[in-house]
């Protein structure tokens, strides 16, 4: 087991390095090939050649890509000094460079943007688990009835409707027509009620999509589990139906759901772009969209790295969790 | 103890009692169709950071036997004894770790896929599960005709005609050429598998649990069919099964396997009449007999516990952990498969006394 964890951690590090390298290569080398100059991008439109050259020196953009990559990676762990034009700017670890646009350090920008994203993902997750798993279990138990068909129709709608459509619908109804919510994001520390009010619509929109997927998954898994021999054994022991479903069947049904949940949460950190844009949430996804529009390469790189880390770490956690959930995995 | 581990029952030790009546063992001059010598298959187990090999499943561990033309060799043993692996090695669906397999005098132990292709005409396999061994998307005609296509052979009268002849041969309606496997019952599907195996007129057929998935009444149909086909086509069978009654019914000679080893190898009558290995004895006594009157009289040898893991088989004799006759020597020395009587090979330090099967010794 220990060897397994070590091997997995090692794989995580290699994976992240590769992601970094590829992203780095795409964002810093390819623009060069197409004639765009990162240094010019950094400085802005009306800059004289000397300034551009100075920036190029300072950011080390004329170094070979691998050297630049090394500076970048070591900057993440050890911080980095930018020397040029007679000044030394120290960027403390973890250093992801400076925004081309605002000239702020990337890392604080990202950490500012993280809480809304985490709040969105976490809150939506609670809702979709409650709704999706309940709907799935009820559907499985009432297979073929109107309840089942109704739930599955709703789930089908949830899976197929694009999130911006649901988002606009929710906004139109609850914000503009009924005026129930503000949909402005405020910090939790400043105004908990406002925080909740601002997030409730994004939560619902995002949760609707995922609840639909989870309901379908839960229903399918639950139906399969109910056909298992050990469920028959549980009934043969004289357990109440509540124990048969709630304890024996749920235990098995939750295993694949826990697996998928971990991965979905990981992926959501970088992929809630549409939800965040639709509701104007100042999260990572929105930061990414703005950065892409502004060709703000360091921020894009930072977001990609955080998203990748979240996915890879979530996968690792899921695998380790699996060993806790399933004793058969634990021992082999 | 008699001399060396000798796979061929030539030159049996002098002190054994000659056996007159059982024909197969008395004609050692016939050249064997299949000869297996010191066959070994280990499946490696890897572990740790660098995936070092930390051990191996000793599935088949140094077994030797012959199969003579026209006979049926039964291979019997409990799960995990390596009998199925042995079948897959002989048909070269698996690569042996060691030892040699000779078919008609030719070493096929390490032939590649290409080298085996011509041999596949002569060696065919019938599988246990008539549900999963047939492709559900192919018609029966395609399935049974596949060997012709793979070997690039056109039989006289064309593939279709030949396939229909084969279907008739195994007792299926030739008109059902265009049907799919799911339209047939379990027993009929097993017949399809047999027809496919016989398409190229093989010399040797290895059948791995050919009837164990079938109902009793159907099982008898297939057993009889295998019997008839052997008579008609002069086939040689190696039949692998866990059911000692079925093995008794179909086999001329029988090899009993335990944890990757052959512990006893002899003709049917000696094995069932006068087993010499304690494991064989226990195995036979454990089979439930369909006769309520015998219930009270029989003495049953109840073995303790389960078969040990083939990953770390017991030292010395592999059966010593469950054997009621085991002594110190069994823990330390591995008994060699030796002919204690003509054609009766046993690997045991304390075999049951030599006696003639059935009737009293001459």
């Amino acid at each position: 087991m220990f060897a397994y964890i070590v091997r997995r951690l090692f794989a995580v590090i290699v994976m992240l390095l590769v992601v970094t390298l590829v992203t780095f290569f795409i964002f810093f080398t390819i623009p060069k090939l197409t004639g765009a100059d990162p240094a010019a991008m950094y400085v802005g439109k009306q800059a004289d050649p000397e300034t551009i050259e100075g920036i190029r020196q300072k950011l080390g953009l004329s170094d070979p890509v691998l050297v630049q990559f090394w500076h970048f990676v070591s900057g993440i762990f050890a911080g980095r000094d930018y020397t040029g034009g007679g000044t030394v700017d120290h960027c403390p670890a973890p250093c992801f460079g400076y925004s081309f646009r605002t000239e702020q350090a990337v890392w604080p920008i990202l950490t500012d943007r993280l809480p809304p994203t985490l709040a969105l993902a976490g809150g939506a997750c609670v809702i979709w688990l409650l709704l999706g798993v309940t709907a799935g279990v009820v559907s499985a138990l009432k297979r073929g009835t109107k309840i089942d068909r109704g739930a599955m129709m709703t789930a089908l709608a949830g899976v197929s409707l694009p999130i911006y459509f649901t988002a606009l619908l929710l906004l139109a109804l609850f914000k503009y027509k009924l005026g129930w919510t503000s949909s402005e994001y405020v910090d939790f520390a400043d105004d908990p009620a406002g925080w909740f009010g601002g997030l409730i619509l994004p939560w619902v929109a995002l949760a609707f999509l995922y609840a639909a997927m989870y309901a379908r998954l839960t229903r399918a898994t639950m139906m399969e589990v109910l056909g298992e021999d050990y469920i028959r054994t549980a009934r043969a022991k004289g357990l109440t139906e509540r124990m048969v479903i709630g304890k024996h069947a749920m235990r098995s049904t939750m295993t694949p759901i826990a697996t998928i949940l971990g991965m979905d949460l990981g992926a959501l950190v970088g992929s809630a772009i549409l939800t965040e844009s639709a509701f104007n949430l100042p999260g990572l996804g929105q930061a990414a969209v703005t950065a892409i529009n502004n060709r703000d390469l360091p921020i894009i790189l930072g977001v990609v790295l955080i998203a990748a880390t979240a996915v890879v770490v979530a996968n690792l956690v899921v695998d380790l969790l699996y060993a806790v959930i399933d004793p058969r995995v634990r021992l082999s | 103890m008699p001399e060396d581990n000798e796979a061929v029952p030539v030159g049996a030790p002098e002190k054994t009692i000659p056996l007159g009546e059982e024909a197969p063992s008395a004609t050692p001059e016939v050249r064997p169709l299949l000869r297996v010598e010191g066959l070994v298959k280990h499946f490696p187990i890897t572990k740790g950071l660098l995936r070092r090999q930390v051990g191996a499943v000793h599935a088949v561990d140094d077994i030797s036997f012959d199969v003579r033309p026209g006979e049926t060799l039964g291979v019997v043993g409990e799960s995990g004894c390596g009998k199925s692996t042995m079948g897959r090695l002989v048909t070269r669906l698996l690569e042996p770790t060691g030892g040699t397999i000779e078919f008609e005098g030719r070493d096929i132990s390490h032939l590649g896929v290409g080298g085996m292709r011509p041999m596949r005409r002569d060696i065919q396999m019938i599988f246990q599960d008539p549900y999963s061994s047939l492709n559900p998307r192919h018609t029966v005609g395609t399935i049974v005709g596949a060997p012709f296509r793979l070997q690039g052979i056109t039989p006289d009268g064309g593939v279709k005609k030949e396939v229909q002849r084969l279907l008739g041969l195994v007792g299926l309606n030739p008109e059902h050429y265009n049907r799919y496997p799911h339209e047939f019952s379990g027993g009929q599907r097993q017949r399809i598998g047999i027809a496919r195996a016989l398409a190229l007129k093989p010399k040797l057929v290895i059948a791995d649990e050919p009837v164990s998935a079938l109902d009793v009444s159907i099982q008898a149909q297939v057993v009889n069919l295998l019997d008839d086909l052997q008579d008609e086509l002069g086939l040689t069978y190696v039949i692998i099964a866990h059911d000692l009654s079925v093995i008794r019914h179909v086999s001329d000679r029988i090899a009993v396997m335990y944890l990757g080893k052959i512990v006893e190898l002899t003709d049917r009558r000696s094995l069932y009449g006068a087993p010499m290995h304690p494991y064989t004895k226990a195995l036979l006594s454990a089979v439930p007999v369909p006769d309520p009157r015998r219930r009270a009289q029989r003495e049953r040898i109840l073995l303790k516990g389960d078969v040990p893991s083939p990953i770390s088989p017991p030292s010395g004799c592999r059966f010593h952990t469950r054997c009621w006759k085991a002594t110190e020597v069994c823990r330390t020395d591995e008994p060699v498969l030796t002919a204690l009587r003509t054609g009766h090979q046993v690997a045991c330090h304390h075999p049951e006394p030599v006696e003639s099967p059935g009737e009293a010794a001459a």
Partner: protein
Amino acid sequence: MTTTPEPAVDMAKEPPGGRAYLDVRDLRIHFPTDDGVVKSVDGLSFKLEKGRTLGIVGESGSGKSVSSLGIMGLHTVGQYGRRKARISGEIWLDGKELLTADPDEVRRLRGREMAMIFQDPLSAMHPYFTIGAQIAEAYRIHHDTDKKTARKRAVELLDRVGIPQPDRRVDDYPHQFSGGMRQRAMIAMALVNNPALLIADEPTTALDVTVQAQILDLIRDLQKEFGSAVVIITHDLGVVAELADDILVMYGGRCVERGPAEQVFYEPQHPYTWGLLGSMPRIDRDQTERLIPVKGSPPSLINVPPGCAFSPRCPYADVPGEGITRTERPELRPVAGEKSRGHVAACHMTQEDRTRIWTEEIAPKL
């Protein structure tokens, strides 16, 4: 089943009390499907007293497993929420009728009064709970005790069924047990509440011969010790011959022959029973002859042949005379004879014909 003198079939309703411990009457279990109604069990009756063992023999699809699940009230399992299985008839257990009883009352009987062992102990145990937890759970649902007592009881039972180091193995998961030990644990789970009725559905089919012998021995010992009524369901005539006092042969959802084990083996009355005996390779005798298989395949339970369900496969279908076997369903009729108490068979042939065919044509070839 008892050895009561009257023919054990088609008895009119009699007051409860005085009836057998387990008394099944005209049990029918039908499953509506898109292709038609599957008549898995179609009019099954038998009786069983405490301390006796009934062996139900049949091939796959004969209805033997479904009928035992029906007794336990578990016949809908696996069909959850689908169109409901239809069950009718009467199942009397210790004077209570189960089909008309409150489902929760039947639930309380399950595991306490009647328990069941299944074929494949690996899939019949929950992979995520320890063996001990699963046994203790079966105990606690019927006894008001704490976890510690239940665990002690689990260790006690594991010890009784022959698991070495039970106090340690009680915390193992099912996959850590070998096949034989799992079946022992399964038996421990079934016996934890001292049930008076134990139903074993192919308890040794998934096991090796030497382990099978151990398990059969265990079942026999436990029955002696607990004095319970045992129903053993199997396709293996060897297994019933080892354990059963009485044998019930099922074909196409119905009972075709039933009687004391010796009678069924030595004077079988139904051609299907002959077929089973003839198809079976024997380990206890040297067979020179070929096996005598039953021709054809078992019937579909949706379109059970009219008349005698076995008639399309029966070599003697024409013996009783023109076509009656294909139009009229034979009733179970008692077999005459001194030793034949409680021996019944559903065959149109006269007993003389059957005796003649058995003694002259079948028995010599076995």
